[in-house]
């Protein structure tokens, strides 16, 4: 064990890992986050707290992480490179660890043009690759990015990154994953998987190169509420593919929401069998209440407990 992260413990135990996601609110009350923590607590090993996702101002991921810790849910704080330079990011890493947070997910971040402040300046002082390296360097070498020694307690984070098997160029996607692992990523959460065939091709290449032995890959699953949502995601979100057969299946269903959950359960049962997949990350956008049902139906309940 390199850290005190509960997520790392579950991976080390060899169990198939389950995480979910909580988007913090656009106001200063943590009530909703407390509620979702109660909903998810017994059904997931950890929950991501997004970092101003889609570039919309919300409660910060670190503050959200503290709220989750207080509710005994292991937070995975997301940190994007969009809003902070290397000084602010390292300061936040120190601060987050001092507040009891020990699991992090490093990302580039959605471009601010999508958010509620499209006239803002983006930072991108460093990219996600450098952020992964920095978190590892602070932990393993007790050094800041600049090489200066951390003289007292170093922040000890279990480090995750993201991968999108559905972005282009497809042939470079495994290369980019390998670079992230080389940079120090210990677990990976993928973009939402709808095109299972493409994900399987991706994982074949991952395993052929032996990357699955160096990192824990969690397959991203999103239950869809309607065929319109499915089509919207496929057509309007960069780097997302939603096959027609999923759209058609939802369209033909009597109860689209129920069918959306059925599809998610089938997808999870499918990815469980794919070599190299060590867990599932359920992104039930504005549908967190359904996570327990999905987890139970996939035979992933109860979750492992450690002393």
């Amino acid at each position: 064990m390199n850290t005190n992260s509960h997520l790392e413990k579950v991976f080390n135990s060899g169990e198939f890992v389950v995480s979910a996601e909580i988007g913090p609110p656009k106001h200063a009350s943590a009530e909703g986050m407390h509620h979702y923590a109660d909903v998810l607590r017994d059904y997931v090993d950890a929950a991501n707290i997004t970092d101003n996702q889609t570039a919309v101002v919300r409660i910060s991921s670190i503050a959200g992480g503290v709220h989750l810790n207080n509710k005994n849910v292991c937070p995975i704080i997301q940190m994007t490179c969009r809003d902070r330079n290397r000084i602010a990011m390292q300061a936040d890493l120190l601060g987050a660890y001092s507040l009891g947070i020990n699991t992090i997910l490093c990302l580039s971040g959605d471009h601010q043009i999508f958010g509620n402040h499209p006239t803002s300046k983006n930072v991108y002082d460093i990219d996600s690759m450098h952020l992964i390296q920095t978190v590892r360097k602070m932990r393993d070498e007790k050094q800041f990015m600049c090489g200066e020694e951390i003289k007292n307690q170093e922040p000890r984070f279990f480090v995750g990154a993201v991968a999108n098997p559905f972005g282009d160029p497809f042939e470079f996607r495994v290369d980019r994953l390998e670079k992230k692992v080389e940079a120090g990523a210990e677990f990976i959460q993928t973009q939402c998987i709808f095109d299972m065939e493409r994900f399987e091709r991706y994982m074949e290449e991952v395993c052929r190169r032996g990357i699955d032995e160096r990192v824990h890959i969690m397959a991203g699953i999103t239950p869809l509420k309607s065929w319109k949502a499915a089509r919207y995601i496929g057509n309007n979100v960069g780097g997302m593919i939603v096959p027609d057969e999923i759209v058609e299946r939802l369209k033909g269903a009597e109860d689209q929401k129920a069918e959306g959950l059925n599809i998610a359960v089938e997808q999870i049962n499918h990815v469980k069998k794919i070599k190299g997949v060590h867990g599932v990350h359920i992104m039930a956008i504005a549908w967190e209440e359904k996570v327990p049902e999905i987890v139970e139906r996939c035979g992933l309940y109860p979750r492992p407990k450690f002393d």
Partner: protein
Amino acid sequence: MIVAEQKPIKTIADLIEDSNKVLLVGCSACVAVCLAGGEKETEVLASALRIKRKQEGKPLETVTKMVTRQCDPEYIATLDDSVEDVDTIISLGCGVGVQYLAERFYNKWVIPALDTKFAGGSIEHGQWEERCGLCGDCILHRTGGICPIIRCSKSLLNGPCGGSQDGKCEINKDVPCAWHLIYERMKSLGKLDKLLEIQPPKDWSRSRDGGPRKVTREDVFID
């Protein structure tokens, strides 16, 4: 070249609302090439402002001058005899030109007629595109001759983000993904292995983040 675009006539007219006589200064360098501040644009802007003011019953007197380059003091000096009786100088140069005029004619009100956009080139007649981020530390030898600093919307150094699809950037389907272009070029050059190396964080102190920059060549000083 520096690519610029003229501000809307109304915006410029508002900026000279209180002036009765203005000097419009065009520039024969970059902004002439990109059809924003050359001789023709300077004359057209002068007459547009005059017509507008005439319609408003508050006639405007204009004088137009061209200089070879607004970014060289010696050319700015050629205007010394033209500024005396004008209320305002309107520069059709880039941001550099506006400042050189303001420095030379310290007691005159100088306003920009252009928005200076970027360092780029033409892709077809009437269309220009950004190519260089002026970061002060060129890495084009590592990225197949395609600049990720300015052509990637996130200035990523280590490959495309998750938003790249069908060769396009997530911000807009009309924007090519720089990393897709880099990948294709490196592939055609048989150098894909280079993209597996992790590129180190950028030293932004060589860019504007190190403060305003200066280039000195003592060997060409005239003394």
